[in-house]
């Protein structure tokens, strides 16, 4: 995965505070931010049986405000197995998702914890 894209995502998402009452609203906020920063993205891209929230240049981005670690891990793992995917990023408001393996199917997995939106 391109190192710089993950970094850009981390920096961009870290510079915003999101207001949300549902996962969908958080995704809308993220889409709004990406658009404002000129980051091109695809939403709801079909990856095998799943639809990933955002897809940017081979990177599957999943947004979570809840879900157990194991459920989320399984979901990310399915993404990582898809041939179009070169890397996976989890954008989450939950600290417990930090314990994600950083490699799945030999593809890098990054977790961006939106701590700024919590306070």
């Amino acid at each position, binding site marked *: 995965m391109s190192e710089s894209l993950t970094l850009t995502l981390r920096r961009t998402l*870290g*510079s*915003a*505070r*999101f*207001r*949300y*009452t*549902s996962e969908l*609203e958080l995704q*809308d*906020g*993220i889409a*709004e*931010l990406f658009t*404002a920063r000129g980051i091109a993205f695809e939403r709801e891209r079909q990856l095998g049986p799943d639809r990933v929230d955002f897809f940017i240049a081979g990177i599957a981005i999943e947004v979570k*405000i*809840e879900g157990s670690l194991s459920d989320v891990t399984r979901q990310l793992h399915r993404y990582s197995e898809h041939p179009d995917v070169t890397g996976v990023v989890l954008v989450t*408001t*939950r*600290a*417990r998702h*930090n314990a994600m393996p950083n490699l799945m199917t030999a593809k890098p997995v990054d977790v961006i914890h939106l*701590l*700024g*939106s*919590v*306070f």
Partner: protein
Amino acid sequence: MKTYGTLQLEHEKHRWRLECEPHVMLRLKRLFASVGKRSHGVVYVADTEENARDLEWFIDRYRLEVSPRASAHLVKQSLMHRERASLVDALIAGRMPPTDFNRVLALPARGYQQVAGDIVLRGGSLLLADEVGLGKTLSAICTFTDTRTLPALVVTLTHLPKQWANEIAKFAPSLRVHILKKGTPYDLTRIGGRGKQLGLSAGTPDVIITNYHKLTGWAETLAPVVRSVVFDECQELRRRGAPGERSQKYQAAEHVARYTQFRMGLSATPFYNYGGEIWNVMNVLRPDGLGTETEFHTEWCVSAADKPRISDPHAFGTFMREAGMMIRRTRKDVGRELPPLSKVPHHVEADPEAIEKIAGSASELARIILRQGESHRGEKFHASEELSNKLRQATGIAKAPYVAEFVRLLVESGEKVVLYGWHHEVYRLWGELLRDLAPAFFTGVQSISEKDKSKQAFVAGESRVLIMSLRAGAGLDGLQGKCRNVVFGELDWSPGVHEQCIGRVYRDGQIDPVVAYFLVAESGSDPIVADVLGLKKSQIDGVLEPTGALVEHLDQGDGNVKRLAAAFLLQRGLSLPAQTAVAS
């Protein structure tokens, strides 16, 4: 003309009884989501203004038999609904001139403060949820200038009666104010006030101020006497207690409120945790405003066991406003914007040993909590309290040296700091680690006069660090302009508490940008508490600001802390590490 059934008013039970043909009943159930799906033949709907308005058009479509008396009540309630909504709307939008309270106040109130007072006088009740520090107290004082509200009762937090008395003396000096001194009733007719003019014993005070705790003993005595009640920091009413073990504080408030003509709740943070708490608060301020508790739950909440969450906070917030039950103005709305506030989460180290120490007893407690079955409910509850407390304290202790260093960094770069915590053991550690900076304390241990002294020492600059309890300071005024840094060395479970804490410094009179640092450890209880905070915050934001933007710019925390570190090094004549880029 054909009728489809009957509509009867059960006045004493505050509800409507509907009996109608099965196909009409199906329609009715679709309209009133709160009516149980399984109820047959007869259904009940709470007698609220909202429901009256809906029932009115329902019986227009499906004629029901209604007695003339019930019909008159229905029309009256429904009219009230229309009027209240348009009144609040007109006043807020400025289409209707508000009562000019400034003719009678010693010092002028601002327009938006008068509007809130006016809504109470015209509509009878209001939850005033203006942003922290916009001067809600004065809106209440506006209402006291109308003698219909006297004698008035103000119920506030333990440390605030004095502050209230001072404000009243400043703006309405002709009012005779009395702060209740004991928790048990004594003769109030010798205080002096407008008593006689109001048809009461001469000597009854005009405004009686008490804390929530004392109200318990006084409720019976005061209820028949006072004509209006103000619940300051009304999030205190968020807990009602389970049936059979109702909170005494809550019952006292409910009792007094039932008797009074005017009711006002003041709080920037009317609920602290999950949205379900708002029903308890509104039940006191405007009984039946939200229907029965069951109706409220079915209509608005998803139940997470005993902590009902509001399923659509935006919709609910909009509803509360449109029904004229709540108003909330932000600083921006009223053109009193302060310099910016940044909330900066900052990771700090934590000493793993301090957390490890409690591992043994903590896992024992955890096992109790996770035990299957209902039989150990009480035990489980206590175990969770204890575990939460133990873990949070251990986390506080583990972070303490790093928190103290962080605060020292701020102080030595010339700043003053309000440092928030929760556990005595943690305060003690901070006190030791920062001893040379002579911190002042404002926590649960200090008496009211000691707290006042601490506040003075901090305001005067004798202490540059004020160590405060997370839950001791709601409503406290006077720190703004003296300090622009808030540090959370320990976290609370409720976002509302953090708002209140920041509000001590970030309020009218603040001239500098304020930074609130949340020092978060990556171990111990902090990650869990942060998760819960996020969840609760989304409920609160949704209700209070239904139309807020989805994204806002987060002032880059890193930048702030880096600037601080650089200033610190430079002040000590030390050089910056190579390649330090510090944005100015």
